[in-house]
């Protein structure tokens, strides 16, 4: 994975798309896939989407695969819980729980939906620079200057957090005379004390950053952007293409009689 909020360091068709457009398209697709609860529609979309993002974003398969592993447990637990908690014809019994056909179908559907949205999420973050997205939201989505830069300041805090988290846990662990070499305590008490210190330090950093931005004139009037984010015809083509394909797939599964929604399971 790349560092937090940074795109893979190469160029690609997906890299070049306007981030606001990308986010909007991504959002619409994730709302559309809320509708079907049969396994076929998300599967078909996944079969189209995975090679598409790998190709258009020049994302190496192993990178995508590794990222997908992160949401594996989430998808699996959705499958498991749905399989045993829905009414319908019983197909098996596991640990005294009845696995139903309906449960299995819905479970697989929700799991595939998670993998699909997860894949798109990974493709989005691997091809989008977080800071450019904020600039673009400011330019193209009329997000105000102060909220934009507040989020960017939040992002700076975020970049520093992993390092600070480790430092704080180290610093606090040596306060315990019984602390053992080479280990950091993992009990809930130690973790929450570290989290509290992290919060205090981050809030103080936030206050200083707000002051630093204000003393450089943020919010004093109309501002310019020295490296604007491009928005052109190709972005419209991109949006039309992705949404078109998505609707086409749903149309096909519907006509093939495979589509199910909550009202028809």
């Amino acid at each position: 994975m790349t560092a937090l909020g940074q795109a893979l360091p190469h160029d690609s068709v997906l890299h070049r798309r306007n981030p606001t457009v990308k986010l909007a398209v991504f959002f619409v697709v994730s709302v559309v896939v809320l509708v079907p609860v049969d396994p076929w529609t998300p599967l078909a979309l996944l079969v189209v989407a995975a090679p598409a993002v790998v190709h258009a974003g020049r994302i190496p398969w192993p990178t995508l695969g590794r990222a997908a592993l992160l949401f594996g447990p989430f998808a699996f637990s959705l499958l498991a819980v749905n399989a045993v908690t829905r009414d319908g014809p019983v197909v098996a019994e596991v640990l005294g729980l009845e696995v139903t056909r309906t449960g299995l179908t819905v479970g697989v559907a929700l799991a595939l939906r998670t993998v699909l949205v997860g894949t798109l999420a990974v493709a989005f973050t691997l091809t989008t620079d977080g800071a450019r997205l904020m600039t673009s939201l400011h330019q193209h989505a009329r997000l105000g200057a102060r909220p934009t830069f507040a989020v960017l300041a939040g992002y700076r805090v975020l970049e520093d957090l992993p390092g600070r988290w480790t430092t704080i846990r180290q610093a606090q662990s040596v306060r315990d005379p019984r602390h053992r070499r080479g280990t950091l305590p993992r009990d809930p008490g130690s973790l929450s004390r570290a989290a509290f210190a992290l919060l205090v330090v981050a809030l103080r950093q936030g206050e200083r950053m707000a002051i630093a931005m204000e003393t450089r004139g943020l919010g004093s009037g109309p501002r310019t952007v020295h490296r604007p984010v491009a928005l052109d015809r190709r972005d419209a083509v991109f949006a039309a293409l992705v949404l078109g394909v998505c609707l086409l797939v749903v149309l096909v599964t519907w006509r093939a009689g495979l589509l199910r929604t909550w009202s028809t399971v």
Partner: protein
Amino acid sequence: MIEVRGLGVTFPGTPAPVLRSVDLDVRPGEQVLVLAGSGAGKSTLLRVLAGIVPQVVDAEVTGVARVAGLDATTTPTADLAAHVGTLTQDPTDQLCLPTVLDEVAFALENRGVDPGLIGPAVHRTLASVGAAHLAGRRTAELSGGEGQRVALAAALVADPQVLLLDEPTALLDPAAARGVARAVRGAVGDGRATVMVEHRLDELGHLPARVLVLGPDGRVRADGPTERVLHDDARSLAGMGTWLPLSAELTAAGVGSLERLTVDPVPTSVPGVRVLSARGLSVRRGQRTVLDGVDLDVHAGRVTAVVGLNGSGKSSLLLALAGLLPAGGTVTGGSVGLVFQHPEHQFLARSVHDELAWGPHRARLPDVDERVSAGLDDYRLRGLEDRDPFRLSGGQQRRLSLGAMAVCGHDVLLADEPTFGQDRRTSAACADALRRLADEGRGVVLVTHDLRLVGEVADDVLLLRAGHPLALGPVDDVLADDALLSRAGLPLPAVLAASRTTGHPVRAVLRALRTATLPAPVRA
């Protein structure tokens, strides 16, 4: 350009004002250095001029503060910024954007400057502070010194009429501090009024022509040409605990040169038993080896100083000695306590008392109450028992973190930059605390950028360069070896250079200078 009349500032919940009837006029083209002890209100004065106090930070402000013709106490901070460039005290926290280019361009964008003109201005300003090579970098990956230069460029880029600088070199090694000082000097241009707070006067090389001195009561103690103020008031300035350039310090001591000083011999500390021993220590962080092949023995009763440039691996060494980083090689010996650079990272309890009691409790020591009580006295924390540790001043936080570690009775105490940002008096007090711990029979390892502090407390010095040990030896030998120091990239402070000519051990000379200038010996 700046016109301050009868300025008073009181923070809520505090009985006494921080600043009282301060008057200050600064004309275009003039530079003023503000000197005062810790907590005397230097930053507060700059924050009033920048429109931060009372608009962003609550305070009761009386009197008049006009900057570039605007009332600084009511003009919105962002509007005032059209005329004022500000560098605040902690450099790492003023980089707010992900890349260096965005960071430096920010002030111009906010003024609505034509985008076509911004790029060239950004590069020009970066070059003027010696940071042209950083243009392509991300801010999160900058070292302390690099970050400080970028922050300076970001304050200068809009060519402000008024420039306010609060300790622009605090976190830097001596070489980088000189670089930034040069950049500041270069940036002080035509017609611009500059007000600067700085502790490291000898590193500055060339002092601004005018000095404003604030007393501990928040009143102006002196205001005038640098030479005259520093030499006429040298004694009282030294007494207030401010740092002084060497020549003024000598005046305060009442001598023309260090050789005239009566130097009493100080007892050399005899090494006790070996309490910690590292062999072939190496550390990897990220993809790089940041420490390689370090051998170090720590003896009871002795203070070992570790010095080197920013990023040479000093903090990594301490972490490895404390067993907090996976390291190659071996570390054997007794129990180890480590005082981190930022006290805030180390606090665990919600009151000073509980903070001191924490370690002894954990260790199930029998005499927790006595230890806490002794800690309160030794580190001058009486009266603050119930205060939240985060609510202490910087100097008090430092003392608490040192005290909380010391009461645990570790065999070895490691301290990372214990004096940064402190005035002369608190820094001396900290040096005494470390010396006392060693004299009680602990082994002490000290990381610092302040070679003068090294001369004052250390018995041995380990010199690091880019993760490699350059030398390890008695302090007088290491500090006398010019070739060695220049290979480490460390310029010698003026006072140490001068002390060589006296023929006495460096610690004895520094002690004598201190006795002659700081009034009463202060306990930590």
